[in-house]
Protein backbone atom coordinates (compact mmCIF):
# COMPACT_ATOMS: atom_id res chain seq x y z
CA UNK A 1 0.00 0.00 0.00
CA UNK A 2 2.67 2.45 1.06
CA UNK A 3 4.61 2.02 -2.14
CA UNK A 4 1.67 2.70 -4.42
CA UNK A 5 0.36 5.73 -2.51
CA UNK A 6 3.68 7.55 -2.18
CA UNK A 7 2.83 10.14 -4.82
CA UNK A 8 -0.58 10.83 -3.27
CA UNK A 9 -1.20 13.83 -1.02
CA UNK A 10 -3.81 14.08 1.73
CA UNK A 11 -5.90 16.40 -0.44
CA UNK A 12 -5.90 13.85 -3.28
CA UNK A 13 -7.45 11.28 -0.96
CA UNK A 14 -10.27 13.68 -0.05
CA UNK A 15 -10.76 14.62 -3.69
CA UNK A 16 -10.80 11.06 -5.01
CA UNK A 17 -13.16 9.70 -2.40
CA UNK A 18 -15.55 12.65 -2.36
CA UNK A 19 -15.68 12.49 -6.16
CA UNK A 20 -16.58 8.80 -5.98
CA UNK A 21 -19.69 9.89 -4.03
CA UNK A 22 -20.61 13.11 -5.80
CA UNK A 23 -19.82 12.36 -9.42
CA UNK A 24 -22.08 9.69 -10.83
CA UNK A 25 -21.75 8.48 -14.40
CA UNK A 26 -24.42 6.79 -16.53
CA UNK A 27 -22.73 3.42 -16.01
CA UNK A 28 -23.67 3.57 -12.33
CA UNK A 29 -27.34 4.26 -13.06
CA UNK A 30 -27.44 1.43 -15.59
CA UNK A 31 -25.91 -0.97 -13.04
CA UNK A 32 -28.30 0.22 -10.32
CA UNK A 33 -31.28 -0.07 -12.67
CA UNK A 34 -30.36 -3.62 -13.72
CA UNK A 35 -29.63 -4.78 -10.16
CA UNK A 36 -32.81 -3.17 -8.79
CA UNK A 37 -34.89 -4.54 -11.66
CA UNK A 38 -33.56 -8.09 -11.25
CA UNK A 39 -34.12 -7.87 -7.47
CA UNK A 40 -37.72 -6.84 -8.07
CA UNK A 41 -38.41 -9.42 -10.78
CA UNK A 42 -36.48 -12.37 -9.38
CA UNK A 43 -36.72 -11.81 -5.63
CA UNK A 44 -39.77 -9.79 -4.65
CA UNK A 45 -42.26 -10.95 -7.31
CA UNK A 46 -41.63 -14.69 -6.72
CA UNK A 47 -41.77 -14.06 -2.98
CA UNK A 48 -45.14 -12.33 -3.32
CA UNK A 49 -46.26 -15.20 -5.56
CA UNK A 50 -45.27 -17.64 -2.81
CA UNK A 51 -47.03 -15.53 -0.17
CA UNK A 52 -50.21 -15.47 -2.28
CA UNK A 53 -50.29 -19.15 -3.26
CA UNK A 54 -48.64 -20.52 -0.12
CA UNK A 55 -45.35 -22.18 0.73
CA UNK A 56 -46.27 -25.04 -1.69
CA UNK A 57 -44.92 -22.80 -4.46
CA UNK A 58 -41.50 -23.75 -3.14
CA UNK A 59 -40.19 -27.28 -3.65
CA UNK A 60 -40.21 -27.90 0.10
CA UNK A 61 -41.93 -31.11 1.05
CA UNK A 62 -41.31 -34.16 3.18
CA UNK A 63 -38.46 -35.15 3.65
CA UNK A 64 -36.84 -32.03 2.18
CA UNK A 65 -38.58 -29.54 4.45
CA UNK A 66 -35.46 -27.41 4.60
CA UNK A 67 -34.18 -26.35 1.22
CA UNK A 68 -32.44 -23.58 -0.60
CA UNK A 69 -34.00 -20.87 1.58
CA UNK A 70 -32.14 -22.14 4.61
CA UNK A 71 -29.04 -22.89 2.52
CA UNK A 72 -29.18 -19.27 1.31
CA UNK A 73 -29.69 -18.06 4.87
CA UNK A 74 -26.50 -19.86 5.99
CA UNK A 75 -24.65 -18.67 2.89
CA UNK A 76 -25.50 -14.99 3.43
CA UNK A 77 -24.81 -15.16 7.16
CA UNK A 78 -21.48 -16.76 6.25
CA UNK A 79 -20.67 -14.12 3.67
CA UNK A 80 -21.22 -11.50 6.32
CA UNK A 81 -18.47 -12.95 8.45
CA UNK A 82 -15.30 -11.69 6.96
CA UNK A 83 -16.31 -8.06 6.78
CA UNK A 84 -16.72 -6.83 10.32
CA UNK A 85 -14.85 -9.78 11.86
CA UNK A 86 -11.77 -9.38 9.66
CA UNK A 87 -11.90 -5.62 10.10
CA UNK A 88 -11.99 -5.97 13.91
CA UNK A 89 -9.13 -8.48 14.00
CA UNK A 90 -6.97 -6.36 11.68
CA UNK A 91 -7.81 -3.22 13.68
CA UNK A 92 -6.69 -4.82 16.95
CA UNK A 93 -3.52 -6.18 15.33
CA UNK A 94 -2.86 -2.76 13.79
CA UNK A 95 -2.56 -4.06 10.21
CA UNK A 96 -2.18 -1.09 7.90
CA UNK A 97 -3.31 -2.96 4.78
CA UNK A 98 -6.78 -3.18 6.29
CA UNK A 99 -7.29 0.55 6.01
CA UNK A 100 -8.21 0.86 2.35
CA UNK A 101 -10.60 -2.07 2.24
CA UNK A 102 -12.34 -2.44 5.56
CA UNK A 103 -15.21 -0.01 4.95
CA UNK A 104 -16.51 -1.95 1.94
CA UNK A 105 -15.92 -5.24 3.74
CA UNK A 106 -18.03 -4.01 6.66
CA UNK A 107 -20.76 -2.90 4.27
CA UNK A 108 -20.70 -6.38 2.83
CA UNK A 109 -21.37 -7.71 6.33
CA UNK A 110 -24.28 -5.39 6.84
CA UNK A 111 -26.03 -6.12 3.56
CA UNK A 112 -25.35 -9.85 3.71
CA UNK A 113 -26.99 -9.93 7.12
CA UNK A 114 -30.00 -8.03 5.79
CA UNK A 115 -30.39 -10.47 2.91
CA UNK A 116 -29.94 -13.42 5.31
CA UNK A 117 -32.63 -12.07 7.64
CA UNK A 118 -34.95 -11.70 4.63
CA UNK A 119 -34.41 -15.38 3.82
CA UNK A 120 -35.72 -16.34 7.25
CA UNK A 121 -38.93 -14.52 6.39
CA UNK A 122 -39.08 -16.17 2.98
CA UNK A 123 -38.50 -19.60 4.55
CA UNK A 124 -41.13 -19.39 7.29
CA UNK A 125 -43.86 -18.92 4.71
CA UNK A 126 -45.99 -16.66 6.88
CA UNK A 127 -43.67 -13.75 7.74
CA UNK A 128 -46.50 -11.78 9.34
CA UNK A 129 -46.06 -14.07 12.35
CA UNK A 130 -42.31 -13.39 12.62
CA UNK A 131 -42.90 -11.37 15.78
CA UNK A 132 -43.78 -14.63 17.53
CA UNK A 133 -40.03 -15.18 17.80
CA UNK A 134 -39.72 -12.03 19.91
CA UNK A 135 -40.29 -11.96 23.65
CA UNK A 136 -43.22 -9.61 24.30
CA UNK A 137 -46.09 -9.61 26.72
CA UNK A 138 -49.21 -10.97 25.00
CA UNK A 139 -52.78 -11.95 25.84
CA UNK A 140 -51.96 -15.68 25.59
CA UNK A 141 -49.26 -15.29 28.22
CA UNK A 142 -46.98 -17.24 25.94
CA UNK A 143 -43.23 -16.66 25.73
CA UNK A 144 -40.65 -17.91 23.24
CA UNK A 145 -38.68 -21.02 24.16
CA UNK A 146 -35.17 -19.77 24.87
CA UNK A 147 -33.89 -23.35 25.00
CA UNK A 148 -34.22 -23.56 21.21
CA UNK A 149 -31.28 -22.72 18.90
CA UNK A 150 -33.78 -20.82 16.73
CA UNK A 151 -34.18 -18.31 19.55
CA UNK A 152 -30.41 -18.21 19.97
CA UNK A 153 -30.39 -17.23 16.29
CA UNK A 154 -32.83 -14.36 16.80
CA UNK A 155 -30.70 -12.94 19.61
CA UNK A 156 -27.36 -13.51 17.86
CA UNK A 157 -28.36 -12.11 14.47
CA UNK A 158 -30.13 -9.09 15.98
CA UNK A 159 -26.99 -8.37 18.04
CA UNK A 160 -24.65 -8.88 15.10
CA UNK A 161 -26.73 -6.66 12.81
CA UNK A 162 -26.84 -3.93 15.48
CA UNK A 163 -23.12 -4.27 16.24
CA UNK A 164 -22.07 -4.27 12.59
CA UNK A 165 -24.24 -1.23 11.78
CA UNK A 166 -22.81 0.69 14.73
CA UNK A 167 -19.24 -0.37 13.93
CA UNK A 168 -19.39 0.81 10.31
CA UNK A 169 -21.10 4.05 11.34
CA UNK A 170 -18.65 4.89 14.13
CA UNK A 171 -15.66 4.35 11.85
CA UNK A 172 -17.26 6.59 9.22
CA UNK A 173 -17.99 9.65 11.39
CA UNK A 174 -14.65 11.45 10.61
CA UNK A 175 -15.12 10.68 6.93
CA UNK A 176 -18.69 11.98 6.93
CA UNK A 177 -17.25 15.23 8.35
CA UNK A 178 -14.64 15.34 5.56
CA UNK A 179 -17.38 14.84 2.95
CA UNK A 180 -19.61 17.41 4.71
CA UNK A 181 -16.93 20.05 4.21
CA UNK A 182 -16.72 19.35 0.47
CA UNK A 183 -20.41 19.11 -0.47
CA UNK A 184 -23.29 21.50 -0.91
CA UNK A 185 -27.11 21.36 -0.86
CA UNK A 186 -28.97 18.29 0.41
CA UNK A 187 -25.77 16.29 0.59
CA UNK A 188 -24.25 18.85 2.92
CA UNK A 189 -27.33 18.68 5.17
CA UNK A 190 -27.22 14.87 5.17
CA UNK A 191 -23.50 14.68 6.00
CA UNK A 192 -23.84 17.42 8.63
CA UNK A 193 -26.37 15.21 10.41
CA UNK A 194 -24.36 12.02 9.88
CA UNK A 195 -21.09 13.56 11.11
CA UNK A 196 -22.79 14.80 14.33
CA UNK A 197 -20.64 17.95 14.45
CA UNK A 198 -17.29 16.12 14.30
CA UNK A 199 -14.30 18.48 14.21
CA UNK A 200 -11.36 16.10 14.59
CA UNK A 201 -10.23 17.43 17.97
CA UNK A 202 -7.75 15.51 20.11
CA UNK A 203 -10.59 14.65 22.52
CA UNK A 204 -12.78 13.27 19.69
CA UNK A 205 -9.97 11.15 18.21
CA UNK A 206 -9.09 9.79 21.63
CA UNK A 207 -12.69 8.81 22.42
CA UNK A 208 -13.24 7.35 18.96
CA UNK A 209 -10.12 5.23 19.29
CA UNK A 210 -11.26 3.70 22.57
CA UNK A 211 -14.89 3.25 21.59
CA UNK A 212 -13.84 1.64 18.30
CA UNK A 213 -11.40 -0.67 20.05
CA UNK A 214 -13.99 -1.77 22.63
CA UNK A 215 -16.50 -2.40 19.86
CA UNK A 216 -13.93 -4.51 17.99
CA UNK A 217 -13.25 -6.54 21.14
CA UNK A 218 -16.98 -7.13 21.62
CA UNK A 219 -17.71 -7.96 17.99
CA UNK A 220 -15.01 -10.61 17.42
CA UNK A 221 -16.47 -13.19 19.85
CA UNK A 222 -19.95 -12.16 18.75
CA UNK A 223 -19.17 -13.04 15.12
CA UNK A 224 -17.81 -16.41 16.19
CA UNK A 225 -20.92 -17.03 18.27
CA UNK A 226 -23.29 -16.10 15.44
CA UNK A 227 -22.18 -18.82 13.07
CA UNK A 228 -21.70 -21.34 15.86
CA UNK A 229 -25.33 -20.74 16.76
CA UNK A 230 -26.41 -21.07 13.12
CA UNK A 231 -24.60 -24.44 13.06
CA UNK A 232 -26.50 -25.56 16.17
CA UNK A 233 -29.79 -25.06 14.30
CA UNK A 234 -28.68 -28.21 12.49
CA UNK A 235 -26.26 -29.94 14.88
CA UNK A 236 -28.81 -30.03 17.71
CA UNK A 237 -31.22 -32.02 15.56
CA UNK A 238 -30.87 -35.80 15.59
CA UNK A 239 -30.52 -36.09 11.82
CA UNK A 240 -27.59 -38.29 10.67
CA UNK A 241 -24.71 -36.20 9.24
CA UNK A 242 -25.99 -33.10 11.04
CA UNK A 243 -25.69 -34.20 14.67
CA UNK A 244 -21.93 -33.54 14.93
CA UNK A 245 -19.79 -31.58 17.37
CA UNK A 246 -17.49 -30.37 14.56
CA UNK A 247 -20.33 -28.23 13.15
CA UNK A 248 -19.61 -24.99 15.04
CA UNK A 249 -15.94 -24.62 13.98
CA UNK A 250 -16.87 -26.01 10.56
CA UNK A 251 -19.46 -23.27 10.06
CA UNK A 252 -17.26 -20.50 11.48
CA UNK A 253 -14.28 -21.40 9.26
CA UNK A 254 -16.58 -21.81 6.23
CA UNK A 255 -18.12 -18.42 6.95
CA UNK A 256 -14.79 -16.61 7.21
CA UNK A 257 -13.59 -18.43 4.09
CA UNK A 258 -16.64 -17.48 2.07
CA UNK A 259 -16.56 -13.90 3.40
CA UNK A 260 -12.90 -13.45 2.50
CA UNK A 261 -13.63 -14.64 -1.03
CA UNK A 262 -16.53 -12.17 -1.11
CA UNK A 263 -14.16 -9.35 -0.11
CA UNK A 264 -11.87 -10.23 -3.05
CA UNK A 265 -14.86 -9.96 -5.42
CA UNK A 266 -15.96 -6.63 -3.96
CA UNK A 267 -12.39 -5.24 -3.95
CA UNK A 268 -12.02 -6.14 -7.62
CA UNK A 269 -15.23 -4.33 -8.54
CA UNK A 270 -14.38 -1.23 -6.49
CA UNK A 271 -10.87 -1.07 -7.88
CA UNK A 272 -12.01 -1.44 -11.46
CA UNK A 273 -15.22 0.57 -11.53
CA UNK A 274 -14.78 3.19 -8.78
CA UNK A 275 -11.24 4.08 -9.89
CA UNK A 276 -9.61 3.10 -6.59
CA UNK A 277 -6.46 1.62 -8.18
CA UNK A 278 -4.23 3.76 -5.97
CA UNK A 279 -5.94 2.63 -2.78
CA UNK A 280 -6.83 -1.01 -3.40
CA UNK A 281 -3.54 -2.40 -4.57
CA UNK A 282 -1.87 -5.70 -5.37
CA UNK A 283 -0.77 -5.85 -1.74
CA UNK A 284 -4.42 -6.28 -0.72
CA UNK A 285 -4.98 -9.08 -3.22
CA UNK A 286 -1.71 -10.70 -2.18
CA UNK A 287 -2.66 -10.67 1.51
CA UNK A 288 -6.22 -11.78 0.85
CA UNK A 289 -4.86 -14.58 -1.35
CA UNK A 290 -2.64 -15.81 1.50
CA UNK A 291 -5.63 -15.70 3.83
CA UNK A 292 -7.74 -17.66 1.33
CA UNK A 293 -5.03 -20.30 1.07
CA UNK A 294 -4.83 -20.69 4.84
CA UNK A 295 -8.61 -20.82 5.22
CA UNK A 296 -8.97 -23.35 2.39
CA UNK A 297 -6.50 -25.65 4.15
CA UNK A 298 -8.36 -25.39 7.47
CA UNK A 299 -11.69 -25.89 5.70
CA UNK A 300 -10.35 -28.96 3.89
CA UNK A 301 -9.03 -30.40 7.15
CA UNK A 302 -12.42 -29.94 8.85
CA UNK A 303 -14.14 -31.62 5.90
CA UNK A 304 -11.79 -34.58 6.24
CA UNK A 305 -12.51 -34.75 9.98
CA UNK A 306 -16.25 -34.69 9.22
CA UNK A 307 -15.88 -37.64 6.84
CA UNK A 308 -13.61 -39.49 9.25
CA UNK A 309 -15.91 -39.14 12.26
CA UNK A 310 -18.88 -40.31 10.19
CA UNK A 311 -16.92 -43.39 9.07
CA UNK A 312 -15.40 -44.01 12.51
CA UNK A 313 -18.80 -43.81 14.25
CA UNK A 314 -19.52 -47.23 12.75
CA UNK A 315 -23.26 -46.62 12.71
CA UNK A 316 -25.30 -47.65 9.71
CA UNK A 317 -27.20 -44.36 9.47
CA UNK A 318 -24.03 -42.26 9.46
CA UNK A 319 -22.44 -44.60 6.90
CA UNK A 320 -25.54 -44.35 4.69
CA UNK A 321 -25.52 -40.54 4.92
CA UNK A 322 -21.80 -40.48 4.16
CA UNK A 323 -22.01 -42.77 1.17
CA UNK A 324 -25.04 -40.82 -0.13
CA UNK A 325 -23.10 -37.57 0.14
CA UNK A 326 -20.05 -38.92 -1.69
CA UNK A 327 -21.71 -41.11 -4.32
CA UNK A 328 -25.47 -40.45 -4.24
CA UNK A 329 -27.84 -38.18 -6.16
CA UNK A 330 -26.02 -34.98 -5.15
CA UNK A 331 -22.48 -36.44 -5.47
CA UNK A 332 -21.57 -34.22 -8.44
CA UNK A 333 -22.31 -31.19 -6.29
CA UNK A 334 -20.08 -32.55 -3.54
CA UNK A 335 -17.14 -33.05 -5.90
CA UNK A 336 -17.74 -29.64 -7.48
CA UNK A 337 -17.50 -28.16 -3.98
CA UNK A 338 -14.23 -30.02 -3.32
CA UNK A 339 -12.81 -28.84 -6.66
CA UNK A 340 -13.76 -25.18 -6.03
CA UNK A 341 -13.04 -24.90 -2.31
CA UNK A 342 -10.26 -27.40 -1.60
CA UNK A 343 -8.32 -27.78 -4.87
CA UNK A 344 -8.61 -24.49 -6.80
CA UNK A 345 -7.46 -22.25 -3.88
CA UNK A 346 -4.12 -24.11 -3.87
CA UNK A 347 -3.29 -21.81 -6.80
CA UNK A 348 -2.81 -19.11 -4.16
CA UNK A 349 0.53 -20.75 -3.30
CA UNK A 350 1.85 -18.80 -6.28
CA UNK A 351 2.58 -15.14 -5.53
CA UNK A 352 2.03 -14.34 -9.21
CA UNK A 353 -1.48 -15.78 -9.04
CA UNK A 354 -2.34 -13.83 -5.87
CA UNK A 355 -1.38 -10.52 -7.47
CA UNK A 356 -3.24 -11.22 -10.74
CA UNK A 357 -6.59 -9.49 -10.43
CA UNK A 358 -8.79 -11.37 -12.91
CA UNK A 359 -7.66 -14.88 -11.85
CA UNK A 360 -8.24 -13.87 -8.20
CA UNK A 361 -11.72 -12.62 -9.12
CA UNK A 362 -12.53 -15.91 -10.87
CA UNK A 363 -11.21 -17.89 -7.89
CA UNK A 364 -13.21 -15.82 -5.40
CA UNK A 365 -16.42 -16.42 -7.35
CA UNK A 366 -15.62 -20.14 -7.68
CA UNK A 367 -15.05 -20.40 -3.92
CA UNK A 368 -18.40 -18.81 -3.19
CA UNK A 369 -20.16 -21.10 -5.67
CA UNK A 370 -18.50 -23.99 -3.83
CA UNK A 371 -19.50 -22.56 -0.45
CA UNK A 372 -23.12 -22.11 -1.55
CA UNK A 373 -23.04 -25.73 -2.69
CA UNK A 374 -21.69 -26.75 0.71
CA UNK A 375 -24.63 -25.09 2.45
CA UNK A 376 -27.07 -26.73 0.06
CA UNK A 377 -25.48 -30.13 0.68
CA UNK A 378 -25.64 -29.72 4.47
CA UNK A 379 -29.40 -29.27 4.21
CA UNK A 380 -30.22 -31.32 1.10
CA UNK A 381 -28.24 -34.54 1.51
CA UNK A 382 -28.89 -34.90 5.24
CA UNK A 383 -32.66 -34.67 5.06
CA UNK A 384 -32.76 -36.94 2.00
CA UNK A 385 -31.27 -39.86 3.95
CA UNK A 386 -32.66 -40.07 7.46
CA UNK A 387 -33.11 -43.19 9.59
CA UNK A 388 -35.87 -45.11 7.79
CA UNK A 389 -35.69 -45.91 4.08
CA UNK A 390 -39.40 -45.08 3.67
CA UNK A 391 -38.57 -41.50 4.56
CA UNK A 392 -35.83 -41.21 1.97
CA UNK A 393 -36.37 -38.84 -0.92
CA UNK A 394 -34.80 -36.26 -3.16
CA UNK A 395 -35.22 -32.51 -2.86
CA UNK A 396 -35.01 -30.35 -5.97
CA UNK A 397 -35.65 -26.60 -5.68
CA UNK A 398 -38.60 -25.16 -7.59
CA UNK A 399 -38.37 -22.31 -10.09
CA UNK A 400 -39.63 -19.92 -7.42
CA UNK A 401 -36.78 -20.92 -5.11
CA UNK A 402 -34.14 -20.68 -7.84
CA UNK A 403 -35.43 -17.29 -8.88
CA UNK A 404 -35.32 -16.04 -5.28
CA UNK A 405 -31.69 -17.23 -4.96
CA UNK A 406 -30.75 -15.28 -8.09
CA UNK A 407 -32.74 -12.27 -6.91
CA UNK A 408 -30.96 -12.25 -3.56
CA UNK A 409 -27.66 -11.55 -5.31
CA UNK A 410 -29.30 -8.67 -7.17
CA UNK A 411 -30.77 -7.39 -3.90
CA UNK A 412 -27.31 -7.43 -2.31
CA UNK A 413 -25.82 -5.64 -5.33
CA UNK A 414 -28.54 -2.97 -5.21
CA UNK A 415 -27.91 -2.29 -1.54
CA UNK A 416 -24.16 -2.15 -2.14
CA UNK A 417 -24.55 0.26 -5.06
CA UNK A 418 -26.62 2.58 -2.87
CA UNK A 419 -23.98 2.30 -0.14
CA UNK A 420 -21.10 3.45 -2.37
CA UNK A 421 -22.94 6.69 -3.07
CA UNK A 422 -23.61 7.48 0.60
CA UNK A 423 -20.63 6.13 2.53
CA UNK A 424 -17.02 6.84 1.56
CA UNK A 425 -16.15 3.31 0.35
CA UNK A 426 -12.51 3.79 1.33
CA UNK A 427 -11.73 5.24 4.75
CA UNK A 428 -10.30 8.72 4.16
CA UNK A 429 -8.61 9.22 7.50
CA UNK A 430 -7.22 5.72 7.83
CA UNK A 431 -5.67 5.82 4.35
CA UNK A 432 -4.03 9.11 5.31
CA UNK A 433 -2.58 7.45 8.40
CA UNK A 434 -0.56 5.16 6.12
CA UNK A 435 0.85 8.12 4.16
CA UNK A 436 3.58 10.67 4.79
CA UNK A 437 2.55 14.13 6.04
CA UNK A 438 1.47 16.39 3.13
CA UNK A 439 4.03 18.45 1.27
CA UNK A 440 1.64 20.08 -1.19
CA UNK A 441 -1.48 21.74 0.17
CA UNK A 442 -4.72 22.50 -1.55
CA UNK A 443 -7.95 24.31 -0.83
CA UNK A 444 -11.01 22.72 0.70
CA UNK A 445 -13.58 23.96 -1.79
CA UNK A 446 -16.79 21.95 -2.28
CA UNK A 447 -16.90 19.52 -5.18
CA UNK A 448 -20.01 20.06 -7.27
CA UNK A 449 -21.68 17.19 -9.08
CA UNK A 450 -21.09 17.24 -12.87
CA UNK A 451 -23.50 19.24 -14.98
CA UNK A 452 -26.56 17.32 -16.06
CA UNK A 453 -26.22 14.90 -13.17
CA UNK A 454 -29.51 14.56 -11.32
CA UNK A 455 -27.60 14.16 -8.05
Amino acid at each position, binding site marked *: MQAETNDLQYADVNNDIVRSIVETGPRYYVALGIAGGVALLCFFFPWFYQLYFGIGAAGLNHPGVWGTYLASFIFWIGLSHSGTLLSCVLHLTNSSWRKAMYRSAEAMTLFSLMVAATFVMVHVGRPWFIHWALPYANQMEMWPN*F*RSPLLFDVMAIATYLTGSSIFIYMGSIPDFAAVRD*RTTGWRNTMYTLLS*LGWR*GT*DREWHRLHWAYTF*LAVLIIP*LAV*SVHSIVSWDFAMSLVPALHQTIFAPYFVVGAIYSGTAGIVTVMFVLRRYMNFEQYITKVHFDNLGKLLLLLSLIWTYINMVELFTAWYSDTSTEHEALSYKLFGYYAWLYWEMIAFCAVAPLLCISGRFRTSMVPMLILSIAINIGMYTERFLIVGTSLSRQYLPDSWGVYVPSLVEMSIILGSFALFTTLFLIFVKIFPSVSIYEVKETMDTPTVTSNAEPIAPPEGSPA
Partner: protein
Amino acid sequence: MKNFALGLFGEPSSALAAAGKLKGAGFDSLELMSPIPIAGVEEVLGEKKSVIKRFTLFGGLFGALFGFTLAAGTAVLYLHPVGGRPIITIPPFLIITYEALIFFGILFTVAGFFISSRLPAFRDRVYVPETGVDKFAVSVACDNEEHFKRAEAILHEAGAEQVREVGEED
Protein backbone atom coordinates in the same frame (compact mmCIF):
# COMPACT_ATOMS: atom_id res chain seq x y z
CA MET B 1 -19.17 35.15 22.51
CA LYS B 2 -15.76 33.59 23.19
CA ASN B 3 -12.71 34.44 21.12
CA PHE B 4 -10.03 32.02 20.06
CA ALA B 5 -6.63 32.24 18.42
CA LEU B 6 -6.35 29.46 15.85
CA GLY B 7 -3.02 28.55 14.28
CA LEU B 8 -2.84 26.39 11.15
CA PHE B 9 0.14 24.09 10.65
CA GLY B 10 1.28 21.85 7.83
CA GLU B 11 2.99 19.38 10.15
CA PRO B 12 1.56 17.57 13.17
CA SER B 13 4.88 17.94 15.02
CA SER B 14 4.77 21.78 14.72
CA ALA B 15 1.16 21.80 15.95
CA LEU B 16 2.12 19.64 18.90
CA ALA B 17 5.10 21.88 19.70
CA ALA B 18 2.83 24.96 19.56
CA ALA B 19 0.33 23.29 21.89
CA GLY B 20 3.14 22.47 24.32
CA LYS B 21 4.46 26.05 24.29
CA LEU B 22 0.97 27.50 24.81
CA LYS B 23 0.40 25.17 27.72
CA GLY B 24 3.76 26.14 29.17
CA ALA B 25 2.80 29.82 28.83
CA GLY B 26 -0.28 29.27 30.98
CA PHE B 27 -3.01 28.82 28.33
CA ASP B 28 -5.16 25.93 29.49
CA SER B 29 -8.15 25.90 27.15
CA LEU B 30 -6.39 24.23 24.22
CA GLU B 31 -7.65 22.08 21.38
CA LEU B 32 -5.86 20.30 18.57
CA MET B 33 -7.74 19.63 15.34
CA SER B 34 -6.39 17.26 12.71
CA PRO B 35 -7.37 15.12 9.73
CA ILE B 36 -5.88 12.04 11.43
CA PRO B 37 -5.24 11.11 15.05
CA ILE B 38 -1.89 12.57 16.16
CA ALA B 39 0.50 10.37 18.08
CA GLY B 40 2.02 11.94 21.20
CA VAL B 41 -0.82 14.34 22.10
CA GLU B 42 -1.02 12.96 25.61
CA GLU B 43 2.68 13.64 26.26
CA VAL B 44 2.08 17.31 25.47
CA LEU B 45 -1.44 18.01 26.71
CA GLY B 46 -1.52 15.47 29.53
CA GLU B 47 -3.08 12.04 29.86
CA LYS B 48 -6.66 11.77 28.73
CA LYS B 49 -9.05 9.65 30.73
CA SER B 50 -12.13 8.23 29.16
CA VAL B 51 -15.24 6.90 30.84
CA ILE B 52 -16.03 4.68 27.86
CA LYS B 53 -14.58 1.56 29.46
CA ARG B 54 -16.91 1.97 32.43
CA PHE B 55 -19.88 2.29 30.11
CA THR B 56 -18.79 -0.91 28.32
CA LEU B 57 -18.37 -2.76 31.62
CA PHE B 58 -21.72 -1.69 33.04
CA GLY B 59 -23.43 -2.30 29.70
CA GLY B 60 -22.04 -5.82 29.64
CA LEU B 61 -23.05 -6.52 33.24
CA PHE B 62 -26.52 -5.09 32.71
CA GLY B 63 -26.87 -7.09 29.48
CA ALA B 64 -25.83 -10.33 31.15
CA LEU B 65 -28.31 -9.79 33.96
CA PHE B 66 -31.03 -8.81 31.49
CA GLY B 67 -30.36 -11.81 29.22
CA PHE B 68 -30.46 -14.38 31.99
CA THR B 69 -33.52 -12.80 33.58
CA LEU B 70 -35.28 -12.72 30.23
CA ALA B 71 -34.60 -16.40 29.51
CA ALA B 72 -35.21 -17.67 33.04
CA GLY B 73 -38.14 -15.34 33.76
CA THR B 74 -40.06 -16.23 30.60
CA ALA B 75 -39.39 -19.94 31.21
CA VAL B 76 -40.96 -19.59 34.66
CA LEU B 77 -43.89 -17.54 33.33
CA TYR B 78 -44.68 -20.09 30.62
CA LEU B 79 -43.82 -23.52 31.94
CA HIS B 80 -42.74 -25.97 29.28
CA PRO B 81 -41.47 -29.12 30.99
CA VAL B 82 -39.35 -31.37 28.76
CA GLY B 83 -38.60 -34.88 29.99
CA GLY B 84 -38.37 -33.85 33.62
CA ARG B 85 -35.47 -31.51 32.95
CA PRO B 86 -35.12 -28.29 34.94
CA ILE B 87 -37.20 -25.30 33.87
CA ILE B 88 -34.23 -22.95 34.34
CA THR B 89 -31.59 -24.69 32.24
CA ILE B 90 -28.20 -23.09 32.58
CA PRO B 91 -26.30 -24.04 29.34
CA PRO B 92 -28.83 -22.68 26.79
CA PHE B 93 -29.64 -19.67 28.96
CA LEU B 94 -25.95 -18.79 29.13
CA ILE B 95 -26.03 -18.30 25.35
CA ILE B 96 -28.88 -15.79 25.67
CA THR B 97 -27.00 -14.19 28.57
CA TYR B 98 -23.87 -13.92 26.42
CA GLU B 99 -25.67 -12.39 23.42
CA ALA B 100 -27.44 -9.84 25.63
CA LEU B 101 -24.11 -9.02 27.31
CA ILE B 102 -22.58 -8.17 23.94
CA PHE B 103 -25.71 -6.32 22.75
CA PHE B 104 -25.88 -3.98 25.73
CA GLY B 105 -22.08 -3.75 25.90
CA ILE B 106 -22.15 -2.33 22.36
CA LEU B 107 -25.04 0.07 23.03
CA PHE B 108 -23.50 1.38 26.26
CA THR B 109 -20.11 1.82 24.54
CA VAL B 110 -21.76 4.01 21.92
CA ALA B 111 -23.55 5.99 24.63
CA GLY B 112 -20.19 6.41 26.43
CA PHE B 113 -18.59 7.65 23.22
CA PHE B 114 -21.30 10.23 22.60
CA ILE B 115 -21.28 11.51 26.17
CA SER B 116 -17.50 11.68 26.58
CA SER B 117 -16.80 13.18 23.16
CA ARG B 118 -19.69 15.67 23.56
CA LEU B 119 -21.34 14.60 20.34
CA PRO B 120 -23.71 15.23 18.66
CA ALA B 121 -23.03 18.97 18.66
CA PHE B 122 -24.63 20.99 15.91
CA ARG B 123 -24.06 24.49 17.28
CA ASP B 124 -21.31 26.67 15.78
CA ARG B 125 -17.96 25.81 17.30
CA VAL B 126 -14.37 26.63 16.46
CA TYR B 127 -13.58 24.77 13.26
CA VAL B 128 -11.73 25.21 9.99
CA PRO B 129 -12.52 22.79 7.13
CA GLU B 130 -8.82 22.58 6.19
CA THR B 131 -8.29 20.36 9.23
CA GLY B 132 -10.48 17.77 7.54
CA VAL B 133 -8.06 17.71 4.60
CA ASP B 134 -4.39 18.34 5.29
CA LYS B 135 -3.91 20.97 8.02
CA PHE B 136 -3.29 20.65 11.73
CA ALA B 137 -4.79 23.36 13.92
CA VAL B 138 -4.28 24.53 17.47
CA SER B 139 -7.02 26.65 18.97
CA VAL B 140 -6.73 28.48 22.26
CA ALA B 141 -9.35 30.51 24.13
CA CYS B 142 -8.32 34.15 24.67
CA ASP B 143 -9.95 36.36 27.29
CA ASN B 144 -8.77 39.67 25.86
CA GLU B 145 -6.69 41.32 23.15
CA GLU B 146 -3.47 40.96 25.12
CA HIS B 147 -4.00 37.21 25.49
CA PHE B 148 -4.66 36.90 21.79
CA LYS B 149 -1.44 38.71 20.90
CA ARG B 150 0.59 36.47 23.19
CA ALA B 151 -1.00 33.34 21.74
CA GLU B 152 -0.50 34.64 18.19
CA ALA B 153 3.18 35.24 18.85
CA ILE B 154 3.65 31.73 20.27
CA LEU B 155 1.79 30.15 17.36
CA HIS B 156 3.88 32.06 14.80
CA GLU B 157 7.04 31.20 16.63
CA ALA B 158 6.13 27.48 16.49
CA GLY B 159 5.76 27.70 12.71
CA ALA B 160 2.08 28.41 12.12
CA GLU B 161 1.32 29.11 8.45
CA GLN B 162 -1.62 31.29 9.47
CA VAL B 163 -3.13 32.56 12.70
CA ARG B 164 -6.82 33.48 12.69
CA GLU B 165 -9.08 35.07 15.25
CA VAL B 166 -12.30 33.07 15.47
CA GLY B 167 -15.35 33.33 17.69
CA GLU B 168 -17.66 30.74 19.22
CA GLU B 169 -21.17 31.09 20.66
CA ASP B 170 -21.24 30.69 24.45
